Protein backbone atom coordinates (compact mmCIF):
# COMPACT_ATOMS: atom_id res chain seq x y z
CA UNK A 1 0.00 0.00 0.00
CA UNK A 2 1.08 3.54 -0.63
CA UNK A 3 0.17 4.75 2.80
CA UNK A 4 3.12 3.45 4.72
CA UNK A 5 3.00 4.00 8.43
CA UNK A 6 6.31 4.16 10.23
CA UNK A 7 5.93 1.30 12.64
CA UNK A 8 7.90 2.89 15.48
CA UNK A 9 5.34 5.69 15.81
CA UNK A 10 2.29 3.58 16.53
CA UNK A 11 4.37 1.17 18.57
CA UNK A 12 5.71 3.86 20.88
CA UNK A 13 2.19 5.25 21.32
CA UNK A 14 0.91 1.74 22.09
CA UNK A 15 3.74 1.13 24.57
CA UNK A 16 2.99 4.45 26.24
CA UNK A 17 -0.69 3.60 26.71
CA UNK A 18 0.14 0.06 27.84
CA UNK A 19 2.38 1.43 30.58
CA UNK A 20 -0.29 3.93 31.67
CA UNK A 21 -2.80 1.08 31.75
CA UNK A 22 -0.45 -1.10 33.77
CA UNK A 23 0.04 1.68 36.33
CA UNK A 24 -3.74 2.16 36.53
CA UNK A 25 -4.18 -1.59 37.11
CA UNK A 26 -1.67 -1.53 39.95
CA UNK A 27 -3.61 1.35 41.51
CA UNK A 28 -6.90 -0.52 41.03
CA UNK A 29 -5.59 -3.56 42.89
CA UNK A 30 -3.93 -1.58 45.68
CA UNK A 31 -6.64 1.04 46.24
CA UNK A 32 -9.77 -0.94 45.39
CA UNK A 33 -12.61 -0.51 42.95
CA UNK A 34 -14.27 2.37 44.78
CA UNK A 35 -11.24 4.64 44.71
CA UNK A 36 -10.29 4.01 41.09
CA UNK A 37 -13.62 3.63 39.28
CA UNK A 38 -16.88 5.51 39.10
CA UNK A 39 -18.84 2.31 39.64
CA UNK A 40 -21.46 2.36 42.36
CA UNK A 41 -24.19 0.11 43.69
CA UNK A 42 -26.57 1.99 41.39
CA UNK A 43 -24.20 1.31 38.51
CA UNK A 44 -22.39 -1.91 39.38
CA UNK A 45 -21.38 -2.61 35.78
CA UNK A 46 -19.76 0.04 33.64
CA UNK A 47 -17.26 0.60 30.89
CA UNK A 48 -15.35 -2.61 31.48
CA UNK A 49 -18.35 -4.87 31.06
CA UNK A 50 -19.43 -2.88 28.00
CA UNK A 51 -15.95 -3.22 26.61
CA UNK A 52 -15.94 -6.96 27.23
CA UNK A 53 -19.02 -7.15 25.01
CA UNK A 54 -17.22 -5.17 22.33
CA UNK A 55 -14.08 -7.32 22.43
CA UNK A 56 -16.01 -10.56 22.28
CA UNK A 57 -18.07 -9.17 19.41
CA UNK A 58 -14.94 -8.22 17.49
CA UNK A 59 -13.50 -11.64 18.23
CA UNK A 60 -16.41 -12.99 16.19
CA UNK A 61 -13.90 -12.40 13.40
CA UNK A 62 -12.50 -15.79 14.36
CA UNK A 63 -15.45 -18.14 14.44
CA UNK A 64 -17.20 -16.67 11.39
CA UNK A 65 -14.19 -17.24 9.16
CA UNK A 66 -13.44 -20.62 10.73
CA UNK A 67 -16.99 -21.71 9.94
CA UNK A 68 -16.92 -20.37 6.38
CA UNK A 69 -13.61 -22.03 5.55
CA UNK A 70 -13.64 -25.26 7.50
CA UNK A 71 -17.33 -26.17 7.64
CA UNK A 72 -18.80 -24.58 4.54
CA UNK A 73 -15.43 -25.19 2.91
CA UNK A 74 -15.18 -21.99 0.91
CA UNK A 75 -11.45 -22.38 0.76
CA UNK A 76 -10.61 -19.11 -0.88
CA UNK A 77 -10.92 -17.56 2.59
CA UNK A 78 -8.11 -19.77 3.88
CA UNK A 79 -5.50 -16.95 3.88
CA UNK A 80 -7.64 -14.97 6.34
CA UNK A 81 -8.20 -17.78 8.83
CA UNK A 82 -4.99 -17.36 10.81
CA UNK A 83 -5.07 -13.57 11.17
CA UNK A 84 -8.71 -13.71 12.23
CA UNK A 85 -8.13 -16.50 14.77
CA UNK A 86 -5.20 -14.52 16.13
CA UNK A 87 -7.40 -11.42 16.43
CA UNK A 88 -10.04 -13.51 18.20
CA UNK A 89 -7.48 -14.93 20.58
CA UNK A 90 -6.17 -11.49 21.49
CA UNK A 91 -9.76 -10.28 21.91
CA UNK A 92 -10.51 -13.08 24.34
CA UNK A 93 -7.25 -12.50 26.20
CA UNK A 94 -8.25 -8.84 26.67
CA UNK A 95 -11.69 -9.92 27.91
CA UNK A 96 -10.24 -12.35 30.44
CA UNK A 97 -7.78 -9.81 31.82
CA UNK A 98 -10.43 -7.10 31.93
CA UNK A 99 -12.82 -9.43 33.77
CA UNK A 100 -10.14 -10.17 36.36
CA UNK A 101 -9.60 -6.44 36.82
CA UNK A 102 -13.35 -5.92 37.14
CA UNK A 103 -13.99 -8.72 39.66
CA UNK A 104 -14.28 -7.54 43.22
CA UNK A 105 -12.52 -10.66 44.49
CA UNK A 106 -10.20 -11.73 41.65
CA UNK A 107 -8.42 -14.12 44.02
CA UNK A 108 -11.59 -16.23 43.84
CA UNK A 109 -11.68 -16.31 40.04
CA UNK A 110 -11.21 -20.10 40.04
CA UNK A 111 -14.46 -20.66 41.95
CA UNK A 112 -16.65 -21.05 38.83
CA UNK A 113 -14.65 -24.15 37.89
CA UNK A 114 -15.97 -26.00 40.93
CA UNK A 115 -19.02 -24.07 42.15
CA UNK A 116 -21.75 -24.38 39.56
CA UNK A 117 -25.08 -22.68 39.12
CA UNK A 118 -26.50 -23.50 35.67
CA UNK A 119 -29.38 -21.08 36.28
CA UNK A 120 -27.02 -18.13 35.93
CA UNK A 121 -26.29 -16.61 32.54
CA UNK A 122 -22.91 -15.68 34.01
CA UNK A 123 -22.25 -19.40 34.43
CA UNK A 124 -22.82 -19.94 30.71
CA UNK A 125 -20.61 -16.98 29.88
CA UNK A 126 -17.77 -18.13 32.12
CA UNK A 127 -17.71 -21.61 30.63
CA UNK A 128 -17.95 -20.24 27.09
CA UNK A 129 -14.94 -18.03 27.77
CA UNK A 130 -12.91 -20.86 29.29
CA UNK A 131 -13.76 -23.42 26.60
CA UNK A 132 -13.59 -21.09 23.63
CA UNK A 133 -10.18 -19.75 24.69
CA UNK A 134 -9.01 -23.35 24.69
CA UNK A 135 -10.56 -23.88 21.25
CA UNK A 136 -8.71 -20.81 19.98
CA UNK A 137 -5.43 -22.13 21.35
CA UNK A 138 -6.06 -25.43 19.56
CA UNK A 139 -6.94 -23.60 16.37
CA UNK A 140 -3.72 -21.59 16.64
CA UNK A 141 -1.58 -24.56 17.63
CA UNK A 142 -0.63 -25.63 14.06
CA UNK A 143 1.01 -22.22 13.67
CA UNK A 144 3.07 -22.80 16.80
CA UNK A 145 3.95 -26.39 15.89
CA UNK A 146 4.98 -25.20 12.45
CA UNK A 147 7.27 -22.56 13.90
CA UNK A 148 9.11 -24.94 16.19
CA UNK A 149 8.88 -27.80 13.72
CA UNK A 150 7.10 -30.09 16.13
CA UNK A 151 5.55 -33.16 14.59
CA UNK A 152 4.41 -35.83 16.95
CA UNK A 153 1.31 -37.70 18.06
CA UNK A 154 -0.17 -34.58 19.65
CA UNK A 155 -0.03 -32.58 16.42
CA UNK A 156 -1.61 -35.48 14.58
CA UNK A 157 -4.41 -35.81 17.13
CA UNK A 158 -5.14 -32.08 16.92
CA UNK A 159 -5.16 -32.23 13.16
CA UNK A 160 -7.49 -35.20 13.21
CA UNK A 161 -9.87 -33.40 15.56
CA UNK A 162 -9.65 -30.06 13.77
CA UNK A 163 -13.14 -30.13 12.26
CA UNK A 164 -14.61 -31.15 15.60
CA UNK A 165 -12.74 -28.34 17.29
CA UNK A 166 -13.99 -25.80 14.75
CA UNK A 167 -17.59 -26.98 15.16
CA UNK A 168 -17.28 -26.88 18.95
CA UNK A 169 -15.88 -23.36 18.61
CA UNK A 170 -18.76 -22.22 16.42
CA UNK A 171 -21.34 -23.55 18.90
CA UNK A 172 -19.51 -21.97 21.84
CA UNK A 173 -19.23 -18.65 20.03
CA UNK A 174 -22.89 -18.63 19.11
CA UNK A 175 -23.77 -19.27 22.74
CA UNK A 176 -21.27 -16.79 24.05
CA UNK A 177 -22.17 -13.92 21.74
CA UNK A 178 -25.86 -14.30 22.49
CA UNK A 179 -25.37 -14.92 26.21
CA UNK A 180 -23.99 -11.43 26.69
CA UNK A 181 -27.43 -10.30 25.59
CA UNK A 182 -29.11 -12.88 27.82
CA UNK A 183 -27.38 -11.27 30.81
CA UNK A 184 -29.92 -8.48 30.54
CA UNK A 185 -33.04 -10.62 30.24
CA UNK A 186 -33.34 -10.53 34.01
CA UNK A 187 -33.68 -6.74 34.36
CA UNK A 188 -36.74 -5.81 32.29
CA UNK A 189 -37.80 -2.90 34.47
CA UNK A 190 -34.36 -1.36 34.83
CA UNK A 191 -33.51 -0.94 31.16
CA UNK A 192 -34.79 1.60 28.68
CA UNK A 193 -37.37 -0.01 26.34
CA UNK A 194 -35.26 0.89 23.31
CA UNK A 195 -32.73 -1.70 24.44
CA UNK A 196 -34.49 -4.22 26.63
CA UNK A 197 -35.94 -6.98 24.56
CA UNK A 198 -36.72 -10.61 25.12
CA UNK A 199 -34.86 -11.37 21.89
CA UNK A 200 -31.74 -9.47 22.93
CA UNK A 201 -29.62 -12.66 22.69
CA UNK A 202 -30.61 -12.99 19.03
CA UNK A 203 -29.91 -9.31 18.36
CA UNK A 204 -26.49 -9.67 19.95
CA UNK A 205 -25.73 -12.69 17.80
CA UNK A 206 -26.76 -11.11 14.49
CA UNK A 207 -24.87 -7.91 15.21
CA UNK A 208 -21.70 -9.79 16.15
CA UNK A 209 -21.63 -11.43 12.71
CA UNK A 210 -21.45 -8.03 11.00
CA UNK A 211 -18.91 -6.80 13.53
CA UNK A 212 -16.75 -9.89 13.12
CA UNK A 213 -16.59 -9.52 9.35
CA UNK A 214 -15.98 -5.77 9.59
CA UNK A 215 -13.20 -6.47 12.07
CA UNK A 216 -11.63 -8.80 9.53
CA UNK A 217 -11.69 -6.16 6.85
CA UNK A 218 -10.23 -3.52 9.16
CA UNK A 219 -7.52 -5.76 10.57
CA UNK A 220 -6.56 -7.07 7.11
CA UNK A 221 -6.20 -3.58 5.69
CA UNK A 222 -4.34 -2.30 8.76
CA UNK A 223 -1.86 -5.14 8.81
CA UNK A 224 -1.37 -4.89 5.06
CA UNK A 225 -0.48 -1.24 5.54
CA UNK A 226 1.84 -1.82 8.43
CA UNK A 227 3.63 -4.89 7.10
CA UNK A 228 3.40 -4.14 3.39
CA UNK A 229 1.60 -7.41 2.80
CA UNK A 230 -0.45 -8.15 -0.25
CA UNK A 231 -4.10 -7.47 0.16
CA UNK A 232 -6.68 -9.75 -1.38
CA UNK A 233 -9.29 -7.12 -2.03
CA UNK A 234 -11.70 -9.54 -3.70
CA UNK A 235 -12.08 -11.48 -0.47
CA UNK A 236 -12.67 -8.31 1.48
CA UNK A 237 -15.21 -7.18 -1.06
CA UNK A 238 -17.03 -10.45 -0.63
CA UNK A 239 -17.04 -9.91 3.13
CA UNK A 240 -18.53 -6.49 2.65
CA UNK A 241 -21.40 -7.91 0.64
CA UNK A 242 -22.11 -10.35 3.50
CA UNK A 243 -22.07 -7.40 5.87
CA UNK A 244 -24.71 -5.63 3.76
CA UNK A 245 -26.99 -8.67 3.99
CA UNK A 246 -26.46 -9.08 7.74
CA UNK A 247 -27.10 -5.39 8.40
CA UNK A 248 -30.36 -5.61 6.46
CA UNK A 249 -31.48 -8.56 8.57
CA UNK A 250 -30.36 -6.84 11.76
CA UNK A 251 -32.26 -3.66 10.89
CA UNK A 252 -35.44 -5.56 10.11
CA UNK A 253 -35.32 -7.70 13.25
CA UNK A 254 -34.49 -4.69 15.41
CA UNK A 255 -37.33 -2.52 14.12
CA UNK A 256 -39.79 -5.41 14.13
CA UNK A 257 -38.89 -6.14 17.75
CA UNK A 258 -39.47 -2.50 18.71
CA UNK A 259 -42.83 -2.57 16.95
CA UNK A 260 -43.91 -5.75 18.67
CA UNK A 261 -43.05 -4.36 22.07
CA UNK A 262 -44.74 -1.06 21.22
CA UNK A 263 -41.50 0.81 21.81
CA UNK A 264 -41.16 2.33 18.37
CA UNK A 265 -42.42 5.68 19.64
CA UNK A 266 -39.35 6.10 21.85
CA UNK A 267 -37.23 6.60 18.72
CA UNK A 268 -38.99 9.84 17.92
CA UNK A 269 -39.00 11.30 21.42
CA UNK A 270 -35.85 13.28 20.63
CA UNK A 271 -34.50 12.92 24.12
CA UNK A 272 -31.12 11.61 25.23
CA UNK A 273 -32.12 7.97 24.68
CA UNK A 274 -33.60 8.46 21.23
CA UNK A 275 -30.45 10.38 20.27
CA UNK A 276 -28.19 7.56 21.43
CA UNK A 277 -30.39 4.97 19.75
CA UNK A 278 -30.43 6.82 16.45
CA UNK A 279 -26.69 7.35 16.65
CA UNK A 280 -26.24 3.62 17.05
CA UNK A 281 -28.67 2.67 14.29
CA UNK A 282 -27.50 5.24 11.75
CA UNK A 283 -23.82 4.69 12.44
CA UNK A 284 -23.90 0.94 12.83
CA UNK A 285 -26.55 -0.08 10.32
CA UNK A 286 -28.01 2.53 7.96
CA UNK A 287 -24.88 4.42 6.91
CA UNK A 288 -22.61 1.42 6.23
CA UNK A 289 -25.51 -0.34 4.52
CA UNK A 290 -25.92 2.56 2.08
CA UNK A 291 -22.16 2.97 1.61
CA UNK A 292 -21.46 -0.69 0.96
CA UNK A 293 -24.28 -0.96 -1.56
CA UNK A 294 -22.07 1.05 -3.89
CA UNK A 295 -19.77 -1.04 -6.03
CA UNK A 296 -17.25 1.75 -6.19
CA UNK A 297 -16.90 1.85 -2.42
CA UNK A 298 -16.70 -1.92 -2.15
CA UNK A 299 -13.94 -1.94 -4.75
CA UNK A 300 -11.79 0.68 -3.04
CA UNK A 301 -9.61 -0.07 -0.07
CA UNK A 302 -10.39 3.22 1.62
CA UNK A 303 -14.09 2.73 1.01
CA UNK A 304 -14.01 -0.74 2.52
CA UNK A 305 -11.87 0.40 5.41
CA UNK A 306 -13.97 3.36 6.46
CA UNK A 307 -17.33 1.64 5.92
CA UNK A 308 -16.17 -1.26 8.09
CA UNK A 309 -14.83 1.13 10.67
CA UNK A 310 -18.28 2.76 10.82
CA UNK A 311 -19.85 -0.68 11.29
CA UNK A 312 -17.49 -1.25 14.23
CA UNK A 313 -18.20 2.16 15.75
CA UNK A 314 -21.94 1.56 15.51
CA UNK A 315 -21.46 -1.88 17.05
CA UNK A 316 -19.50 -0.36 19.94
CA UNK A 317 -22.23 2.24 20.38
CA UNK A 318 -24.81 -0.55 20.55
CA UNK A 319 -22.94 -2.50 23.22
CA UNK A 320 -22.13 0.56 25.31
CA UNK A 321 -25.72 1.78 24.99
CA UNK A 322 -26.97 -1.59 26.18
CA UNK A 323 -24.52 -1.73 29.06
CA UNK A 324 -24.60 1.93 30.14
CA UNK A 325 -27.07 4.28 28.42
CA UNK A 326 -30.10 2.05 28.88
CA UNK A 327 -29.44 1.93 32.64
CA UNK A 328 -29.28 5.67 33.06
CA UNK A 329 -33.04 5.82 33.63
CA UNK A 330 -34.34 6.83 37.06
CA UNK A 331 -31.79 9.66 37.31
CA UNK A 332 -28.89 7.29 37.68
CA UNK A 333 -25.80 8.42 35.87
CA UNK A 334 -22.36 7.07 35.24
CA UNK A 335 -19.30 8.40 33.48
CA UNK A 336 -16.28 6.08 33.52
CA UNK A 337 -13.31 7.28 35.57
CA UNK A 338 -9.88 8.07 34.15
CA UNK A 339 -8.64 4.82 35.68
CA UNK A 340 -11.32 2.82 33.88
CA UNK A 341 -10.41 4.46 30.58
CA UNK A 342 -6.68 4.05 31.19
CA UNK A 343 -6.92 0.32 31.87
CA UNK A 344 -9.21 -0.25 28.87
CA UNK A 345 -7.05 1.73 26.45
CA UNK A 346 -3.92 0.13 27.90
CA UNK A 347 -5.27 -3.35 27.25
CA UNK A 348 -6.22 -2.51 23.67
CA UNK A 349 -2.75 -1.07 23.08
CA UNK A 350 -1.21 -4.19 24.55
CA UNK A 351 -3.43 -6.21 22.20
CA UNK A 352 -2.05 -4.35 19.18
CA UNK A 353 1.50 -4.93 20.41
CA UNK A 354 0.90 -8.64 20.94
CA UNK A 355 -0.59 -8.92 17.45
CA UNK A 356 2.47 -7.15 16.02
CA UNK A 357 4.78 -9.44 17.95
CA UNK A 358 2.94 -12.60 16.91
CA UNK A 359 2.86 -11.60 13.28
CA UNK A 360 6.60 -11.08 13.34
CA UNK A 361 7.42 -14.32 15.12
CA UNK A 362 4.83 -16.61 13.57
CA UNK A 363 3.56 -17.33 10.14
CA UNK A 364 0.20 -15.61 10.45
CA UNK A 365 -0.21 -14.12 7.02
CA UNK A 366 1.35 -16.65 4.69
CA UNK A 367 -0.77 -19.64 5.43
CA UNK A 368 1.14 -22.86 5.75
CA UNK A 369 -1.94 -25.04 5.33
CA UNK A 370 -2.00 -25.67 1.64
CA UNK A 371 -4.34 -28.64 1.70
CA UNK A 372 -7.42 -26.48 1.34
CA UNK A 373 -6.35 -24.64 -1.77
CA UNK A 374 -5.25 -27.78 -3.53
CA UNK A 375 -8.61 -29.42 -3.24
CA UNK A 376 -10.89 -26.62 -4.23
CA UNK A 377 -8.95 -24.49 -6.66
CA UNK A 378 -8.72 -20.69 -6.34
Amino acid at each position, binding site marked *: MKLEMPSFTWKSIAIFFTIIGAIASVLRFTMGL*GATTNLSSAFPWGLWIGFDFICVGLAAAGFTIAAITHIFKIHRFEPIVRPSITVAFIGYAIVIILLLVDLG*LPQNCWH*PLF*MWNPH*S*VMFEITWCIILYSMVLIFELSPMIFEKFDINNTLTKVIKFCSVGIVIFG*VILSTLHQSSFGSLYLI*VPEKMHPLWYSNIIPILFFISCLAAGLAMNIVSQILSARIYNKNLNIQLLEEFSSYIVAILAVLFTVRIQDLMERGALGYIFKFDYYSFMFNLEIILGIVLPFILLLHRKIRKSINGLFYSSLIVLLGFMANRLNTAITSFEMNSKSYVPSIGEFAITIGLVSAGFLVFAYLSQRFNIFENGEEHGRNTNGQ
Partner: protein
Amino acid sequence: MPKSLLIDITKCVGCGECSKACAETNNLSKETSDTLDGTNYTAVKQVGDTFVRKLCMHCDMPTCVSVCLVGAMHKHDNGAVTYDYDKCIGCRYCIQACPFDIPKYEWGKISPAVMKCKFCVEKLEHGKPTACSEACQFGATTFGEKEDMIKEAQKRIAENPNDYINYIYGLKEAGGTSVLYISKTPFEQLGFPTNVSKDAIPNLSWAVLSKIPKFAVVAGVFLFGVHWITARRIEVQKFEKEEREKKQRSK
Protein backbone atom coordinates in the same frame (compact mmCIF):
# COMPACT_ATOMS: atom_id res chain seq x y z
CA MET B 1 -41.97 -23.35 57.34
CA PRO B 2 -41.18 -20.02 55.70
CA LYS B 3 -41.07 -17.09 58.07
CA SER B 4 -42.06 -13.57 57.27
CA LEU B 5 -41.71 -9.95 58.39
CA LEU B 6 -44.79 -7.77 58.22
CA ILE B 7 -43.85 -4.11 58.04
CA ASP B 8 -46.73 -1.78 58.83
CA ILE B 9 -45.62 1.59 57.48
CA THR B 10 -48.48 3.36 59.26
CA LYS B 11 -47.07 2.35 62.65
CA CYS B 12 -43.44 3.31 62.10
CA VAL B 13 -42.33 6.42 63.99
CA GLY B 14 -38.79 6.48 62.61
CA CYS B 15 -37.03 5.85 65.94
CA GLY B 16 -34.33 3.79 64.21
CA GLU B 17 -34.20 1.11 66.95
CA CYS B 18 -34.44 -1.60 64.28
CA SER B 19 -31.33 -0.25 62.52
CA LYS B 20 -29.41 -0.11 65.77
CA ALA B 21 -30.41 -3.65 66.77
CA CYS B 22 -29.52 -4.85 63.28
CA ALA B 23 -26.10 -3.20 63.38
CA GLU B 24 -25.40 -4.65 66.80
CA THR B 25 -26.45 -8.17 65.87
CA ASN B 26 -24.50 -8.18 62.64
CA ASN B 27 -21.43 -6.22 63.84
CA LEU B 28 -22.03 -3.33 61.45
CA SER B 29 -21.12 0.30 61.98
CA LYS B 30 -23.62 1.71 64.47
CA GLU B 31 -24.78 4.81 62.62
CA THR B 32 -28.33 4.84 61.40
CA SER B 33 -28.79 5.89 57.81
CA ASP B 34 -31.70 6.67 55.53
CA THR B 35 -30.25 4.72 52.59
CA LEU B 36 -28.73 1.30 52.11
CA ASP B 37 -25.12 2.22 51.46
CA GLY B 38 -22.99 -0.87 51.89
CA THR B 39 -22.42 -0.33 55.62
CA ASN B 40 -25.86 -1.40 56.82
CA TYR B 41 -28.50 -4.06 56.25
CA THR B 42 -31.53 -1.86 56.82
CA ALA B 43 -32.33 1.83 56.59
CA VAL B 44 -35.27 4.00 57.62
CA LYS B 45 -36.11 6.85 55.30
CA GLN B 46 -38.57 9.65 55.86
CA VAL B 47 -40.90 10.28 52.94
CA GLY B 48 -43.22 13.16 53.70
CA ASP B 49 -44.63 12.31 57.15
CA THR B 50 -44.15 8.55 56.85
CA PHE B 51 -41.13 6.42 57.54
CA VAL B 52 -40.18 3.66 55.15
CA ARG B 53 -37.83 0.93 56.21
CA LYS B 54 -35.83 -0.76 53.49
CA LEU B 55 -34.29 -4.19 53.77
CA CYS B 56 -33.88 -7.30 51.66
CA MET B 57 -37.27 -8.63 50.56
CA HIS B 58 -36.10 -12.27 50.78
CA CYS B 59 -37.94 -13.30 47.62
CA ASP B 60 -39.49 -16.76 47.37
CA MET B 61 -37.78 -17.21 43.99
CA PRO B 62 -34.81 -14.89 44.46
CA THR B 63 -33.27 -13.27 41.39
CA CYS B 64 -29.92 -12.90 43.16
CA VAL B 65 -29.78 -16.64 43.89
CA SER B 66 -30.50 -17.46 40.27
CA VAL B 67 -27.93 -15.07 38.79
CA CYS B 68 -25.02 -15.91 41.10
CA LEU B 69 -22.75 -18.14 39.04
CA VAL B 70 -20.95 -19.63 42.03
CA GLY B 71 -24.02 -20.03 44.22
CA ALA B 72 -22.88 -17.52 46.84
CA MET B 73 -26.51 -16.54 47.37
CA HIS B 74 -28.64 -19.14 49.07
CA LYS B 75 -32.35 -19.45 49.80
CA HIS B 76 -33.14 -21.17 53.09
CA ASP B 77 -36.31 -23.08 53.89
CA ASN B 78 -37.12 -20.57 56.60
CA GLY B 79 -37.28 -17.86 53.94
CA ALA B 80 -33.88 -16.25 54.45
CA VAL B 81 -31.71 -15.36 51.46
CA THR B 82 -28.11 -15.28 52.60
CA TYR B 83 -24.78 -14.35 51.10
CA ASP B 84 -21.58 -16.36 51.37
CA TYR B 85 -18.49 -14.16 51.11
CA ASP B 86 -16.19 -17.19 50.86
CA LYS B 87 -17.81 -18.24 47.58
CA CYS B 88 -18.32 -14.79 46.04
CA ILE B 89 -16.06 -13.72 43.17
CA GLY B 90 -17.32 -10.14 43.10
CA CYS B 91 -19.01 -10.03 39.69
CA ARG B 92 -21.88 -7.95 41.12
CA TYR B 93 -24.54 -9.56 38.94
CA CYS B 94 -26.74 -9.80 42.06
CA ILE B 95 -26.54 -6.03 42.53
CA GLN B 96 -27.35 -5.47 38.87
CA ALA B 97 -30.21 -7.96 38.81
CA CYS B 98 -32.08 -7.36 42.09
CA PRO B 99 -35.49 -5.94 41.17
CA PHE B 100 -35.66 -4.09 44.51
CA ASP B 101 -32.12 -2.62 44.32
CA ILE B 102 -31.21 -4.07 47.70
CA PRO B 103 -27.67 -5.55 47.63
CA LYS B 104 -24.93 -2.97 47.96
CA TYR B 105 -21.19 -3.31 47.53
CA GLU B 106 -18.35 -2.31 49.84
CA TRP B 107 -16.73 -0.20 47.14
CA GLY B 108 -14.19 1.30 49.49
CA LYS B 109 -12.58 -2.02 50.43
CA ILE B 110 -9.82 -3.91 48.63
CA SER B 111 -11.71 -7.20 49.09
CA PRO B 112 -15.32 -6.05 49.11
CA ALA B 113 -18.37 -8.04 50.17
CA VAL B 114 -21.96 -7.75 49.02
CA MET B 115 -23.98 -6.22 51.84
CA LYS B 116 -27.57 -7.20 52.41
CA CYS B 117 -29.91 -8.26 55.20
CA LYS B 118 -29.57 -11.95 56.07
CA PHE B 119 -32.89 -12.27 57.91
CA CYS B 120 -30.88 -12.98 61.08
CA VAL B 121 -30.65 -16.52 59.81
CA GLU B 122 -28.68 -17.82 62.82
CA LYS B 123 -31.36 -16.49 65.19
CA LEU B 124 -34.09 -18.02 63.04
CA GLU B 125 -32.35 -21.38 63.18
CA HIS B 126 -32.54 -21.19 66.98
CA GLY B 127 -36.24 -20.42 66.80
CA LYS B 128 -35.83 -16.72 67.53
CA PRO B 129 -37.24 -13.75 65.61
CA THR B 130 -35.09 -11.24 63.72
CA ALA B 131 -33.30 -8.56 65.71
CA CYS B 132 -35.25 -5.74 64.04
CA SER B 133 -38.62 -7.22 64.93
CA GLU B 134 -37.51 -7.74 68.55
CA ALA B 135 -36.36 -4.12 68.73
CA CYS B 136 -39.53 -2.56 67.33
CA GLN B 137 -41.67 -1.17 70.16
CA PHE B 138 -44.44 0.16 67.94
CA GLY B 139 -45.58 -2.95 66.08
CA ALA B 140 -44.26 -1.63 62.80
CA THR B 141 -42.22 -4.79 62.26
CA THR B 142 -43.82 -8.10 63.19
CA PHE B 143 -42.21 -11.49 62.78
CA GLY B 144 -43.99 -14.80 62.31
CA GLU B 145 -45.01 -17.61 60.02
CA LYS B 146 -45.60 -16.32 56.52
CA GLU B 147 -49.19 -17.60 56.43
CA ASP B 148 -50.00 -15.84 59.70
CA MET B 149 -48.38 -12.60 58.57
CA ILE B 150 -50.43 -12.56 55.38
CA LYS B 151 -53.59 -13.14 57.45
CA GLU B 152 -52.57 -10.42 59.89
CA ALA B 153 -51.98 -7.97 57.03
CA GLN B 154 -55.34 -8.79 55.48
CA LYS B 155 -57.01 -8.43 58.88
CA ARG B 156 -55.49 -5.00 59.52
CA ILE B 157 -56.53 -3.77 56.08
CA ALA B 158 -60.05 -5.18 56.49
CA GLU B 159 -60.55 -3.76 59.97
CA ASN B 160 -59.28 -0.27 59.17
CA PRO B 161 -59.93 0.27 55.47
CA ASN B 162 -59.46 4.03 55.95
CA ASP B 163 -55.95 3.62 57.34
CA TYR B 164 -54.61 1.35 54.61
CA ILE B 165 -54.68 1.05 50.88
CA ASN B 166 -55.91 -2.39 49.90
CA TYR B 167 -52.56 -3.77 48.81
CA ILE B 168 -49.92 -5.98 50.40
CA TYR B 169 -46.57 -5.13 48.82
CA GLY B 170 -44.53 -8.30 48.54
CA LEU B 171 -47.42 -10.74 48.27
CA LYS B 172 -47.09 -10.91 44.48
CA GLU B 173 -43.95 -8.88 43.69
CA ALA B 174 -41.24 -10.99 42.01
CA GLY B 175 -43.44 -14.02 42.58
CA GLY B 176 -43.83 -13.35 46.30
CA THR B 177 -41.43 -12.23 49.05
CA SER B 178 -40.87 -12.95 52.72
CA VAL B 179 -41.06 -9.29 53.65
CA LEU B 180 -44.55 -7.82 53.36
CA TYR B 181 -45.48 -4.15 53.55
CA ILE B 182 -48.81 -2.45 54.22
CA SER B 183 -49.29 1.28 53.98
CA LYS B 184 -51.74 4.16 53.84
CA THR B 185 -49.80 6.00 51.12
CA PRO B 186 -49.62 4.28 47.73
CA PHE B 187 -46.32 2.43 47.43
CA GLU B 188 -45.34 4.26 44.29
CA GLN B 189 -45.24 7.54 46.19
CA LEU B 190 -43.04 5.98 48.87
CA GLY B 191 -40.34 5.09 46.37
CA PHE B 192 -41.11 1.38 46.06
CA PRO B 193 -40.47 -0.10 42.62
CA THR B 194 -44.03 -0.85 41.52
CA ASN B 195 -43.26 -2.12 38.02
CA VAL B 196 -41.61 -5.27 39.38
CA SER B 197 -42.77 -8.40 37.59
CA LYS B 198 -45.46 -10.36 39.42
CA ASP B 199 -43.95 -13.62 38.23
CA ALA B 200 -40.77 -15.25 39.39
CA ILE B 201 -38.03 -13.29 37.63
CA PRO B 202 -35.44 -16.10 37.28
CA ASN B 203 -37.69 -17.65 34.60
CA LEU B 204 -36.70 -14.83 32.25
CA SER B 205 -33.18 -16.20 31.85
CA TRP B 206 -34.03 -19.83 32.45
CA ALA B 207 -36.34 -19.73 29.44
CA VAL B 208 -33.21 -19.22 27.33
CA LEU B 209 -30.64 -21.14 29.40
CA SER B 210 -32.70 -24.31 29.53
CA LYS B 211 -32.63 -24.52 25.73
CA ILE B 212 -28.83 -24.57 25.50
CA PRO B 213 -28.27 -28.35 25.61
CA LYS B 214 -30.85 -28.87 22.88
CA PHE B 215 -29.38 -26.05 20.84
CA ALA B 216 -25.85 -27.41 21.17
CA VAL B 217 -26.89 -30.87 19.98
CA VAL B 218 -28.92 -29.57 17.02
CA ALA B 219 -26.21 -27.10 16.01
CA GLY B 220 -23.55 -29.78 16.34
CA VAL B 221 -25.44 -32.23 14.14
CA PHE B 222 -26.23 -29.50 11.60
CA LEU B 223 -22.65 -28.28 11.35
CA PHE B 224 -21.26 -31.81 11.11
CA GLY B 225 -23.82 -32.50 8.40
CA VAL B 226 -22.79 -29.44 6.42
CA HIS B 227 -19.16 -30.39 6.84
CA TRP B 228 -19.82 -33.95 5.70
CA ILE B 229 -21.81 -32.87 2.64
CA THR B 230 -19.33 -30.23 1.51
CA ALA B 231 -16.34 -32.49 2.11
CA ARG B 232 -18.02 -35.27 0.19
CA ARG B 233 -18.85 -32.92 -2.67
CA ILE B 234 -15.24 -31.81 -2.94
CA GLU B 235 -14.12 -35.45 -2.88
CA VAL B 236 -16.56 -36.33 -5.67
CA GLN B 237 -15.43 -33.37 -7.75
CA LYS B 238 -11.82 -34.43 -7.32
CA PHE B 239 -12.64 -38.02 -8.26
CA GLU B 240 -14.60 -36.96 -11.36
CA LYS B 241 -11.76 -34.70 -12.43
CA GLU B 242 -9.30 -37.56 -12.10
CA GLU B 243 -11.61 -39.83 -14.08
CA ARG B 244 -11.89 -37.27 -16.85
CA GLU B 245 -8.14 -36.87 -16.95
CA LYS B 246 -7.72 -40.63 -17.11
CA LYS B 247 -10.16 -40.86 -20.00
CA GLN B 248 -8.44 -38.08 -21.84
CA ARG B 249 -5.11 -39.74 -21.36
CA SER B 250 -6.42 -43.13 -22.58
CA LYS B 251 -7.85 -41.47 -25.67
